[in-house]
Every structure is written in structure tokens, then in C-alpha cells.
């Protein structure tokens, strides 16, 4: 049998003929359609599957409480398979085909940027319930996740106070990582510290040996990680295997939202710092009730709740509250209700939309990892999205649909 490079290429091009799943048309029912687009398979499913579970619990809770406007809410769940192309396709399907009242979803910033323009064009209200780098300024897009000024600005001074002034930044190599690295660098500088190096990693890198040598060479006081996805979890293991976790501590902007602290052993993760709007240890009645309902629906082996999952629930509930207040699913009316100072009390605490940026004003908690649990060491109430507020004013121009940090902070006029 002959085998040449040419025949191999001919063969492998058959791979390109990947088939999209067949999508049903919207039913003729008069339910209110709530669409969710998340990665339920592929490399990003470590985030997506738990977010989808939380979303479906929210829809259950809304319907159990009598639905909205006398109708049931119907959840259309799309699996974007960790592929950007499917995001665009499903966003169009949800907006034009299903005529969804709202679309929630997107995990990576890349996926958000893929669907945000589409949904703005169709004026289908879009909720992005993920913590991210800030800078979206879109009349149609409500960003409920935390942003760097809310979280990173809290971890950096705490970590520098505890460990020292020199930081080594490592991050995933796409828009989130690139921009979050600039935020970390900026906050380190503001607190009188120094960034000794910044390094980026493609999402499928699993060998961090050369980087660990470089960190040893630079000998910083701390490593600041913005690594993303399943493959990057290798870093924390290899760092510990080289004995580094006992020498140079780690703070992170992403560790924990994929439940990374459950994937590595207690010894490998102990002492790591991170800040989000939610850890399971948040003490309030809503959280206790929420965790009990998650247990009831998904069993005791359900995923550990983190900001991404809880905010997926809260984002859906916040939208539902706005629909009730507006007594309509009309885009303008729901939008006005959301921006009216409406507050939803969720498991993470009160959430209010800041009308200037369409971002959430929310509580933030700073956690230290101990035995695979984040212990809350400090809490901050009602934090405004002051990063995005620097560049975005939807009060002045309510037609904006821009991502200001696309080309980095300097390009957005932030020094």
C-alpha cells in the first residue's frame, strides 16, 4: 500500500466536513423563549456544563413561581462545543429562528465577541454572565460577571502586602489573558510593586517546565496566573512537583472558576489567593437555599459552585425580575427596568445594574485556598465596575455597541 503526504492531506481534509447538529425550529407555542449558548463539550466544558446546570435550575425556579407574564419560560440550550463558529451560528438561530426573549451565555471573551454584534443587530437582549477583563459597552449586552477593578484590584494589594512587591504574570494567550495581564500589571504598579515578566500560553500547552525555570531565574515574590482551561491546570501540578509552591506563592484571576481547586491535590493548591463575586462559603439565606436546591436537582455529587455557575443562575433571575417589573419582554422596557436600580438578592448577595455601563454592581469576596476549599479572608460590598466606567457612558450615548479593550488598555486611553 502506498502512502504519501499528499494522500494523507487529502484524507485529513475530510475532517473539515464536520457536521453541525440539526436544530429544530421554534415551536408554535406561546412560551417565552430563553436561549442559552454554552460549551457543553470540548475543552471548555469544565466551565460550561455546570453553568448550564445552574441556568436550568433558574428556569425551573422561575416556572415554579408561576412563570413570567402568565406564561411558562422555555429553555433552549445550545452546545457550542468549544468552537467559536457554533456560537455565531446558534446566536443567529436563537435570535432569528427561536425569537428568544433573551440569550445568556458565552464563556470565553472570544465567544462573547463572536455573538455580541449578532445579538445587538437583532436587538435580542444578551446577558454575559462570566467574569472577564471589562470594557464592553453595549446597549444590548448586560455583563453581570465581575471585572478586574472589582476583583483583581482587591487581590493584588492583599497579595503584595502578604508576599512582597515583585510579580511574575502568566496568562492564557487570547484576548482575556492579554488584557487581564495588563490590568494586573497596572494594579501592581499602583500599589508600588514591579512586574518582572509577563508570559502567555496557547490554550493547549501542557508542559510548563521551561516557564518554571524562568520563574526560578526571575525569583519574584509571587506568580499571578490568568491561565484558562483544562490543559493549563497542568501548570499548578508541575509547579508543585518542582517544589515551587512552597517557595513562591500564586495568586490568580481564573483559578477556581473551573473548579481547578478540586482537580489538584490539597498540598498542590494550598495558600493560593483569588477574588470573585462568590465562593460556596458565602454566608446568607439565599445561598443556603440555592445550594440545597442544587443538591436536590443534581445530587450531592454536583459540581462545586463558583462565580460562573452562580452568576449564570443569578443572571437568569435578574432578567426575570426585570421582566416582572416591566410587565413585558419588550427589549426597551426590560432594559429600562434593569437600569432602574432594580436589585436582585442572589446567593452572592445583591446585584444591581449600573446604567452607565450595563455591568453589575456586586459583592466581592477574597479567598485563600486551604484543603481544596476557598476560605473567605475578606469581603467587599457593592463594588462598582469602575474599570469599564473609565471608558463607557451609555447614559450619554445609549446606542453604543463597542468593546473598548479590544486592543488593550493603552489603546482605550488607560495608562
Amino acid at each position: 500500500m502506498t502512502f504519501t503526504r499528499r494522500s494523507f492531506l487529502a484524507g485529513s481534509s475530510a475532517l473539515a466536513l464536520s457536521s453541525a447538529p440539526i436544530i429544530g425550529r421554534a415551536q408554535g407555542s406561546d412560551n417565552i423563549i430563553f436561549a442559552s449558548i454554552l460549551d457543553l463539550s470540548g475543552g471548555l466544558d469544565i466551565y460550561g456544563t455546570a453553568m448550564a446546570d445552574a441556568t436550568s435550575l433558574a428556569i425551573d425556579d422561575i416556572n415554579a413561581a408561576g412563570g413570567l407574564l402568565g406564561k411558562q419560560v422555555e429553555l433552549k440550550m445550545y452546545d457550542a462545543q468549544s468552537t467559536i463558529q457554533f456560537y455565531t451560528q446558534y446566536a443567529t438561530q436563537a435570535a432569528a429562528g427561536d425569537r428568544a426573549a433573551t440569550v445568556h451565555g458565552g464563556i470565553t471573551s472570544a465567544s462573547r465577541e463572536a455573538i455580541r454584534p449578532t445579538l445587538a443587530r437583532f436587538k435580542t437582549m444578551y446577558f454575559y454572565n462570566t467574569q472577564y477583563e471589562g470594557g464592553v459597552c453595549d446597549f444590548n449586552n448586560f455583563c453581570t460577571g465581575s471585572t478586574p477593578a472589582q476583583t483583581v484590584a482587591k487581590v493584588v494589594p492583599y497579595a503584595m502586602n502578604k508576599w512582597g512587591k515583585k510579580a511574575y504574570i502568566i496568562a492564557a494567550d487570547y484576548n482575556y489573558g492579554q488584557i487581564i495581564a495588563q490590568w494586573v500589571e497596572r494594579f501592581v504598579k499602583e500599589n508600588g510593586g514591579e512586574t518582572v515578566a509577563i508570559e502567555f500560553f496557547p490554550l493547549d500547552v501542557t508542559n510548563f517546565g521551561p516557564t518554571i525555570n524562568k520563574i526560578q531565574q526571575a525569583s519574584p515574590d509571587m506568580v499571578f496566573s490568568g491561565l484558562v482551561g483544562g490543559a493549563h491546570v497542568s501548570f499548578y501540578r508541575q509547579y508543585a512537583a518542582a517544589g515551587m509552591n512552597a517557595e513562591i506563592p500564586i495568586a490568580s484571576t481564573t483559578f477556581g472558576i473551573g473548579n481547578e481547586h478540586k482537580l489538584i491535590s490539597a498540598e498542590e493548591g494550598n495558600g493560593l489567593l483569588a477574588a470573585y463575586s462568590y465562593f460556596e462559603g458565602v454566608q446568607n439565606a439565599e445561598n443556603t437555599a440555592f445550594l440545597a436546591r442544587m443538591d436536590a436537582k443534581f445530587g450531592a455529587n454536583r459540581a462545586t459552585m463558583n462565580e460562573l455557575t452562580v452568576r449564570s443562575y443569578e443572571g437568569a433571575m435578574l432578567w426575570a425580575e426585570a421582566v416582572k417589573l416591566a410587565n413585558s419582554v419588550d427589549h426597551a422596557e426590560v432594559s429600562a427596568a434593569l437600569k432602574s436600580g432594580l436589585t436582585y438578592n442572589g446567593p452572592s448577595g445583591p446585584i444591581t445594574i449600573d446604567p452607565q455601563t450595563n455591568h453589575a454592581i456586586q459583592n466581592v469576596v477574597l479567598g485563600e485556598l486551604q484543603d481544596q476549599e476557598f476560605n473567605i479572608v475578606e469581603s467587599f460590598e457593592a463594588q462598582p465596575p469602575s474599570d469599564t466606567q473609565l471608558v463607557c457612558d451609555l447614559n450619554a450615548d445609549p446606542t453604543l455597541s463597542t468593546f473598548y479593550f479590544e486592543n488593550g488598555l493603552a489603546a482605550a486611553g488607560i495608562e
Partner: protein
Amino acid sequence: MDLVAAIGFQLAYVIANLALISLGLAIIFGMMRVINLAHGEFLMLGGYTVVVATNAGVNVWVAMLILAPLVVGIIGVIVERVLIRWLYGRMVDTLLATWGLSLLLVGLVTSIFGASTATTVSPPLGVIRFGNYSASGYELFLILITIALFFLVWLTLRFTKLGLLARGTMQNAEMASSLGVSTNRIYMITFGLGAAVSGLAGGLLAPMTGVLPTIGATYIAKAFITVISGGSAILAGTTAGSILLGGLNGIFSFVVGSTFGEIALLLAAIVLLRLMPRGITGRFFRKSL
């Protein structure tokens, strides 16, 4: 000086890592000419075997060195009997079939274990020091076991009857068959051995990288590139390919950054295949195994 030693060690590890993930594919693809797109999933299954076994209380060394190759080898034999044996000589069909198998295995493992798996298998060896620099002792173990594994495969192919029959069958199946060799059985055993080697590699890497249902995707492209760059002599080729590509990847990762390390690896493979379409061993070490 410490830094040179530390970097030298890391380079050796990057090369060994590449060789380790490629060896199983070198046997199945390099020797049998079966394009096994489920290779990454064989590695992943090896990793899951270790995680499940250690969670059930099995000693981690037993799980890695015995159970992982055994379980994946058996899976390999089943796959060969059910799927692959109908498709010998039909390259595009095997490509599609193994791609489907890859998706199936990812789906099955995800539905059994969930999207992310708690893998508290820590690298079971301490730290080695080069002055101010340190590395994992487990990385040293992986370098040594990769060398040992290559030596073992070489011994098997070169000196055992099975090795001789396998090489003969791969060179000319009809002739081997007319000389009384059960080529059917040889194919099955070779595929099973390739799968077992992949399972061993996946098991050994589990403590360093963790396991996820989708972890195979991070290995598959590099393994194919290494084996194709290496050319037809599977052991010499995979070794040469790993040294060249892994070395460049390691050096560029250290000097410029990981992104450029990946670019250097891919670029080197493209240039190499343009100049030597039959891989390194298509031109050098042609008589080697």
C-alpha cells in the same frame, strides 16, 4: 551553571515527553499505516485508568506501570477486532472510523466521569535541585522510563520472533501469509501493543498533566507531527523527530515564550517535510528500526 543544568534537564524532559506520547502512534501509524485519530484518547484512557485505580486504593506505581498499559492494550485489541481489521488498506476509511472512535470515547468518558475529573494523583517523587533551580524528580523518572521503553520496543522488534514476524508482515503481508504467518493475529497483537504503549504513556503523564476527557486533543497533533517528521523507521525516526522538534520547542519556549515554542515546532515540521517528504529516516538512518 545551575541555570544551564536546569534548562538542559528541561530540554531533555520536553524531548522525552514528545517521544513518550508519540511511541504508541509510531507503532500503530508508523508501522501498520493505520491513521489512528483516537491515539489521544488512548492516552486519555491510560490516564483515567490510573485515576480510577488509585482512587480505588491501588498503588500508584502498579496503576501506572501495569494497569494502564494492560487496560488500554485490551481496549486496543477489541478496537482492532471490531473496527480496524475491516479497514486495512483503506486509509481514508480508517481515518474517519478512528475519528468517530475518538469522539465516542470522549463522549463515553465525559458521560461516566463528568467534564472535569478530580485527579488527586500527585507526582509521586520529590524535588531535584540544581543550585537555585529545582525540577520534579518525577520528570527525571519520565525521562529514564522513556529511554527504557524505547529500548524495550527495540529489543522486541529486533530480537524476538514476534518482532521478526511483525516486521515481515508490515513489509509484505502476502508473502508473510504464504510463508505460514497468521498475519491477522500479527496485526491484532501489533495494534494491541501500540495501544498498550499509548496507555502506559497516558498513565505516566497523568500525575503531571491531570486527566480530562478532552486532554487527548492536546497530544494528537504533536504525536502525528513527530511520527511523520521521523519517517518510516519508527524508533530512530520518532527519536530523531522528538529531539529535533522537542528541542526547538523547548529552546524557543525558554528564550521567547510558549507561543513561539509551539510555532517553532510547527514551522520546523513544515520545513522538514518540504525538504524531506519521507521524514528524517527517509534520508538518514534508513536501515535502522
